[in-house]
């Protein structure tokens, strides 16, 4: 029962060398690459703002793009992708909790008109 548990905990307790302890760390080149992607996505976002086809679709795309940027910064610049999974859980818990609760309360106040749901 407890064997793996111990092993797991022991693995964590092993002292790490300072600095690049968390496996494959991105290099500066990666960082710059990421930044360029982020810049490009921002460009697309602004461009989308000025296009005027279906607003609903544009909004959906804008949110998706913001999500991509969010994830990239968190994953690469904040090392969440490479770092200890405890951190990832900690942060995503907060983030998901926030998203769900706030969306739910906005929904009860009729902010989202979900026309495809008969009762919404």
């Amino acid at each position, binding site marked *: *029962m*407890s064997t793996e*548990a*111990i092993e*797991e*905990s022991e693995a964590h*307790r092993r002292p790490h060398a300072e600095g690049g302890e968390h496996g494959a760390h991105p290099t500066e080149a990666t960082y710059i690459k990421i930044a360029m992607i982020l810049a490009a996505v921002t460009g697309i976002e602004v461009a989308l703002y000025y296009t005027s086809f279906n607003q609903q679709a544009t909004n959906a795309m804008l949110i998706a793009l913001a999500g991509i940027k969010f994830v990239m910064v968190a994953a690469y610049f904040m090392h969440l992708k490479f770092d200890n999974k*405890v951190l990832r859980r900690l942060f995503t*818990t*907060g983030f998901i*909790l*926030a998203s*769900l*609760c706030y969306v*739910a*309360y906005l*929904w*009860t*106040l*009729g902010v989202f008109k979900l026309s495809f749901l008969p*009762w*919404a």
Partner: protein
Amino acid sequence: MTDVSLAPAASSQAAAEPRLLRRPLHPTGIWSWLTTIDHKRIGILYGGTSLLFFLAGGIEALLIRLQLARPNGTVIPAGLFNELFTMHGTTMIFLVVMPLSAAFFNYLVPLQIGARDVAFPRLNAFSYWTFLCGGLFLYSSFLLGGAPNGGWFGYAPNTTVTFNPGHNIDFWVFGLQILGIASTVGAVNFVTTILNLRAPGMTLFRMPIFTWMSLVANFLLLFAMPIITVALFLLMFDRNFGSHFFDPTAGGNAILWQHLFWLFGHPEVYILILPAMGMVSEIIPVFARKPLFGYRVMVISGIAIGFMGWGVWVHHMFSTGLGPVAVSAFSLSTMFIAVPTGVKIFNWLGTLHGGSLKFSTPMLFAVGFVAMFTIGGLSGVTHAVSPHDRQQTDTYYVVAHFHYVLFGGSLFGIMGGIYYWWPKFFGRFLNDRLGKFHFWLWFIGFNMTFGPMHLLGLQGMPRRIYRYPTGMGWDFWNMVSTIGAFTIATSVLIFIINVYRSTRHPVYASSDPWDGRSLEWSIPSPPPHYNFAEVPVVTHEDDYWHRKYTEDASGRLVRLEGTAPIPAVITAEERANGNGHGNGHGHDDPPGIHLPSPSYFPLVASTGLPVMAYGMVYGRDAGQNYVITAIGALIVLVGLFAWAMEPSVEPEEHVESGDAPGGPEALTGGGDGQPALVGAGAGVDAEDDGERIPRDLLRGGQTESEEER
């Protein structure tokens, strides 16, 4: 959060750093308490302070009950009545149950996980002082023109300047804001401590259940506090700076406040109950001589309650008119929270079943918890039936519900915890006979006070009314309830006498007076300031029990060979020379234990906060003049800066200090050559600890046994 990240920056090699103030090195006396960063002393400060606030909140309740004893009561005028119940609710929640739980987090969590302190000892001191400042700030309102009067949930727009132009609500807003800082900082600290500083071998599923419930509660705090912070900020902007968040005439949505408040408020009620559930789960097994039934399930149900607690807040808003879909969804989610809670109840019953139950005072409170909390939980489920909640909400039926869970739950649990851990905290017992007397009066008074409220509520008595006419049929039960309240007050007096007696006629406790199961019982009572002379190595859940007992073939417990029962009571001499299971005074200094040094700056930084708050309160009608706020901010900044520049460890300074924390000895027992207070946290210390001293504390050295389970 500058402090968090910069504090370590200054820590290790700052020997020659210029100082604002000489490092406080008083081992005893008032300054040692003002500057302490020992989690045990902070725990005691938390506990003592919140018990005083309990008296304040209780006196408010007694006044409420006096006024309501008879129809058309004239004891208290309407305005004051509104202040009283607001302050009563606010006090009991934010200044009593939360900080009492914090007291236990502080004192016990490091002991239970085998750590030398919390992760951020100075931040911990800051939490306490901030809590105290917030509480005093709130209470100063009584002297400064009127206490908060909007109810503990302060519904807007009743709390906006339009309808509440005085300072009452301002005190509430800024008081809670300050308390929120204390709680958030504390939550970060305890989450870090529990995740990071467990003794070797203490996997998560070997943690004592109280520590587990503390972890869950602190996660809830971590995520819930920012929500009320925002709500209070919005209200502040409305009140002080003319924004329109809660102003319906400008399109503002009055329901926004309720959402934000309950989005915080419901997780909050589980913050209030989970630590108490943890305590009960510690007490029952010890007095039943059986392990906790279904430890893992208990942990998991605690986590489940924590999670589900986020999805039910709208049950406080069933009559605000949110529409059938929202109401249905939240009715369902609310009901199903009964499932994990029920599991806990039945598992406690499972623990009792077949045990050898000894009803010492802590056990009485713990079993009382199981019975009384269930009643409150069940009325909670009837609330969840939202159509009928439209009859119940805002009546005394709700008041009955939440007193059964808060008083019958949280406070029963915490009282049990106080009786149970008192010997550990102070090295002396509370009298069991008086304790039982306390319990029974408390129990009877409690049911007399709050039981009738179920009836009153269903008979149509709304809450928060300062008077009611004759002929409503409420007279009798209100009178009963008032008598009950005074019965509780009597029981509280007995408790006070008991505490007083324990200082006059002490009965000294050994290290393990109850035959305990978790690590805190493996060290002297009260523990030395470094807690563990040697960081324990954990091999089991209920590790300390496994150093004393094992199970025979039929599953019955048997004492391990070579171990002898420790007497519960020790004599003053035994205590003085610490023989074996005394108070640690007899030990040689464990070498190389470095605990963090005391510091002035947490106190300094926190005192800036109420100054800022007064500045905000009075700046509004001083023509938006916020000079005082700026001064307060400056104090905070100076405090934080000095703190950041001060090494957490005072290098090379060896202090003669014997402040074994707790009890009156703490003030007198100095000078027996304890090591300097240096270092930071158990994990870090373990490494400095070159030579290890023999495990004399782990009597018999039974660290591993061949039996599993």
